[in-house]
C-alpha cells in the first residue's frame, strides 16, 4: 500500500481534525439557532400587534418544519402527511376546552395521542419506501380530516369556535408567541441532541443507505418508527397552541388543521434551509413563511403562483438547502487547508457542478 501513502505523513491527525470540524459545525449551528430565536424574542417589544401575529405564525411554521426534519431530514423519509399530527394536537385542545377541561390537559392529550398515532401508523407505513411512503402518509392525513368533518366532531362539519382565554387580548397573544418560541427552542435543542446521539447517527445511516445500515446492525425499522414519533410530538404541540391561539378551526379546506398545505410547507421549509441539519428548518421556515405572509398582503392574487415558483427554484438550485450551500462555500474539501478565497471559488465550482448534474 506504499503507493497510496502520501509523501508527507500528516495523516495521523486527520481523524481528530474531522471530529473537531464536526463539533465546531455542531456548536455553530446550535448557537446560530439560539441567536435567531433570541432575536425573534424581541418582536413583542415593538408593541405592534400585526408584527406579533406575523411572527407567531412564522415561529409556528418553524416548529412544524423542525418536527418534519426528524423524519424527513434525518431519516430521509418523505412524510407528506405530518399535518395529521398538527390536526390531532389542535382537535385534542379544541375538544378538551369544549368539554370544560384545562388547556394544558388538551396539549398533553394531543401530544400523547399524536405520538401514539405516529407509532401505530408507522408500523405499517414505515415498511414502505420512497414514493409509496409519501403517498400513504398523504392519504392518512386527508382521510382523518374528512373523518372529523363527516362525523361533525366538535361542531357541524367539524368546525369549532373556542372561547378566548380569560386574559387581555394583547397579553394572551404575547404568551402564545412565547409559547411557540419556547417550543421552537425546545425542538432546536432536541435536534442538536439528536445530531450527536446514536439515534441520530442511525437515522442518517438509514437515510444514506438503509440496506447497509441494517447490515451493520441498526434496527432500521424501529429507529424509523422512533423518528416518526419524535416528529409528531412538536407538531402536535404546535397544533394545540394554534387551536387556542386562533380560536376557530375547520378540519379540511385551505387553512384547515388537516390541510395538506401545511405538510407541503414543512417539506419546502426544511429543504430550503437544509434537511437533516440542526438550524436549517428554522431558517427555511422564517424565509418562506415571511415571504408567504408578505406576498399574500402585497400580491394577494398571485401569491400561490409565487410560492410555486419558489418551490421549483429550490428544487432545482438548492436541493441540499441553504446550510449545505454555506458549508460547500466555506469548508475545505477533505480537510485540506485552503485560503478562504480558494475555498470559496472551489465551493462555487462544486455547487455549479452539482446543479449541472441535475441536468440544468
Amino acid at each position, binding site marked *: 500500500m506504499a503507493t497510496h501513502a502520501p509523501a508527507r505523513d500528516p495523516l495521523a491527525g486527520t481523524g481528530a481534525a474531522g*471530529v473537531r470540524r464536526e463539533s465546531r459545525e455542531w456548536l455553530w449551528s446550535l448557537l446560530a439557532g439560539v441567536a435567531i430565536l433570541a432575536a425573534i424574542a424581541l418582536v413583542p417589544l415593538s408593541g405592534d400587534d400585526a408584527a406579533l401575529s406575523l411572527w407567531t405564525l412564522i415561529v409556528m411554521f418553524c416548529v412544524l418544519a423542525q418536527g418534519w426534519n426528524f423524519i424527513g431530514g434525518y431519516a430521509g423519509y418523505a412524510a407528506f402527511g405530518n399535518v395529521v399530527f398538527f390536526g390531532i394536537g389542535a382537535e385534542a385542545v379544541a375538544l378538551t376546552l369544549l368539554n370544560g377541561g384545562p388547556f394544558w390537559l388538551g396539549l398533553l392529550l394531543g401530544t400523547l395521542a399524536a405520538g401514539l398515532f405516529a407509532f401505530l401508523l408507522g408500523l405499517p407505513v414505515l415498511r414502505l419506501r420512497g414514493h409509496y411512503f409519501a403517498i400513504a402518509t398523504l392519504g392518512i392525513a386527508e382521510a382523518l380530516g374528512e373523518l372529523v368533518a363527516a362525523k361533525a366532531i366538535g361542531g357541524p362539519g367539524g368546525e369549532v369556535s373556542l372561547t378566548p382565554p380569560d386574559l387581555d387580548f394583547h397579553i394572551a397573544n404575547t404568551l402564545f408567541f412565547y409559547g411557540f418560541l419556547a417550543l421552537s427552542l425546545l425542538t432546536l435543542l432536541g435536534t442538536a441532541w439528536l445530531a450527536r446521539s446514536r439515534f441520530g447517527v442511525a437515522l*442518517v*445511516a438509514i437515510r444514506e443507505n438503509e440496506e447497509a445500515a441494517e447490515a451493520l446492525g441498526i434496527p432500521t425499522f424501529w429507529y424509523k418508527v422512533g423518528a416518526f414519533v419524535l416528529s409528531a410530538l412538536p407538531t402536535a404541540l404546535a397544533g394545540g397552541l394554534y387551536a387556542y391561539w386562533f380560536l376557530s378551526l375547520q378540519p379540511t379546506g385551505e387553512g384547515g388543521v388537516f390541510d395538506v398545505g401545511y405538510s407541503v410547507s414543512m417539506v419546502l421549509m426544511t429543504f430550503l434551509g437544509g434537511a437533516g441539519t440542526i438550524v436549517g428548518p428554522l431558517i427555511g421556515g422564517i424565509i418562506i413563511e415571511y415571504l408567504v405572509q408578505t406576498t399574500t398582503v402585497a400580491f394577494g392574487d398571485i401569491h400561490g403562483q409565487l410560492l410555486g415558483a419558489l418551490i421549483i427554484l429550490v428544487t432545482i438550485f438548492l436541493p441540499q438547502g441553504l446550510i449545505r450551500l454555506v458549508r460547500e462555500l466555506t469548508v475545505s474539501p477533505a480537510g485540506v487547508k485552503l485560503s478562504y478565497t480558494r475555498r470559496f471559488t472551489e465551493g462555487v465550482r462544486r455547487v455549479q457542478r452539482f446543479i449541472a448534474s441535475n441536468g440544468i
Partner: protein
Amino acid sequence: MSSASSRPTASSPSGSPDATPDANAAPILALDAVTKRFGGLPAVDDLSFAVRPGEVLGIIGPNGAGKSTLIGLIGGALAPTSGVITYAGRAIADLPPHRRAHLGIARTFQIAQPFVGLDVRDNVIVGALFGRRGLRRPEAARVADEVLERVHLTHKAMLKGDQLTVADRKRLEMARALATNPRLLLLDEVMAGLTPTEVAQAVELIRAINRDGVTVLVVEHIMRAIKGVSDRILVLHHGRKIAEDLPDEVLADPKVIEAYLGERYARQRAAEREGAATSAATGAATSAADADTDAAEEPEWKGGLA
C-alpha cells in the same frame, strides 16, 4: 503475484495455530437444504454446506450462479424459501439482518453501498457503533481509525463515500464490516475490479483477518485470488453445489472447468493435460496449466458467461 498464487500450507510460518480450522469443531455456519426462489426460479437450489470456525471458505461460480443470493441469505437481506440456516448453533433464517450483525455476521456488498453523505471515517464509525460490539462514540472512533489503518484508507478518511475509487469503495466495505467486530465475515466480490497489486493486498488482508480468528466466506470471481486465500472452495452453478473441496482439487475438476469455461475449453484443457503429463513432472505441469488459465480466463468468463 507469487504470494497470492498459493495458500500457505500448515507448516508455513504465516499460519498461526488458531487460524487453522479444526475439522472436528462444530460448524460456525451450516446450511441445510436451503432454497431461494425468485418467482419460481431457483437462485439457490437445495444447497447444504458447513463452514468450520476459523476457516476461509471460497465460493465461486459463473455469473448468475447464486453467489450474491447466498450472501443475502446468510446476511439476512433475503429470507430462504425453504431450508435451515444455523449459525453458532442457532437457527437464524428468521432473524433480521441487524440481529445477525449483533450475533457477529458481517457482510460486504458486491456493489459497494457506502453512506454517500458521510465521510469514510463516519461510515466506519457506524459499523463500530451498531455492530456486535455496539461501542460508544469515543471508542467507536478509535476502532474506526484502527480499521482504516488496516485497510489502508487512513489518508482518505475525510473523503465522502461517493468520492472514492472502486478499489477504495471495496476497502470501505471491508472496513465497515470489520468495525462491527464480526465472527463470520461474508465478502461479496471484494476483489472484483481491482488491479493485480490491489488483489494481492486484499488477499493479504483477508489472511490477516482470518489469523485474528475470524471465519471468512469469500465469494469471488477471480480464480487466482480465491485459490490463494481459501482453505476450501465451493463451486456453485445454477444455484446448486457442483464441487466442494480443497482449492487445487476443485480447480482441476472437469465439472468446474466446464461450468466456467464451457465444454469445448474443458475438452481442450483435458487434452493439454494429457500431453503435459507425459513430458514433465505432474506438479510443474499443473502450475503451468494454472498460469495459462489465469491468463485466459478473465476475458472469457466476463464475455462468455454474462
